[in-house]
């Protein structure tokens, strides 16, 4: 059962990959199969179930595209 949830405002992502470096569980990768409206490969979460909602990805995102939720017990 996931403890957290992250939502990416995908079309605002510039594909810089800093969130990938910040996730302690390595749950984020750049989606190389897709291109967003800005022309970048957007970041996405590979396994939402393991997200703890620590918000590290959102804290390092230079474009403020990530919203983080923590799921109530």
């Amino acid at each position: 059962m996931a403890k957290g949830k992250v939502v990416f405002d995908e079309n605002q992502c510039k594909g810089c990959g800093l969130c990938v470096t910040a996730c302690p569980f390595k749950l984020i990768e750049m989606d190389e199969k897709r291109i967003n409206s800005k022309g970048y490969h957007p970041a996405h979460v590979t396994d939402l179930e393991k997200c703890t909602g620590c918000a590290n990805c959102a804290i390092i995102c230079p474009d403020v595209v990530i919203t983080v939720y923590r799921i109530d017990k």
Partner: protein
Amino acid sequence: MNIVFEKTKGLTDKTFHYCPGCTHGIIHRITMEAIEELGLLGKAVGIAPVGCAVFAYEYFNCDSYEAAHGRAPAVATGIKRVHPDCLVFTYQGDGDLAAIGTGEIVQAAHRGEKITAIFVNNAIYGMTGGQMAPTTLIGQKATTAPYGRDENHAGKPIMMSEMIATIPGAAYIERVAVNTPANIRKAKKAIKKAFEIQREGKGFTMVEVLSTCPTNWGMTPEDALKWLEENMMPYYKLGIYKSSEGSVING
């Protein structure tokens, strides 16, 4: 579900014009989060520099100004003297604050001007295309230092926090970095502290933020974070250079 992180009201909806991976966006965000958390958005006046952050006034969701290159501390002085109850801050890069604007920043600190300077040090001129900055490291290549900065020719990189901390009018001077989530949290704490000290009327405050420029450094955003840690942090040591409780320098 509880929201634990969302975009601050302190930023407008405008998309940052910065290059992918540029840490200016992080510094904009933590600056405006700090102001929002202090409940001072309605009192804040931000002054944008000339440099990459020249459009900062489009992102700050508060009253704002665009200053001539290096003059933001003088403009801030004019505003603060008219509206002493406003939270007045400048947002300046290393060319702006540490080259063309050294006179203005040093004298504002000497007057104990009750303003806060957010000083973004990325060791290069970004907007103009990667020229040598006063903060460019020895050996670091730039478009006007194609063989790397030579100490005998250009001198050593300027250390603004160390210099401003010697000024009696400076109440709070801290150097932080935005290379990891932990350091970003510390950077925001420092900025918030500086704003609080401005509100208390104790004097001039400055937070120097070590930042990256992947585009002009010629590396990926991830490598730029590593380069910052391995090259900038040993020279530009993080820590509190001036506060009422004394100084704590790391490293």
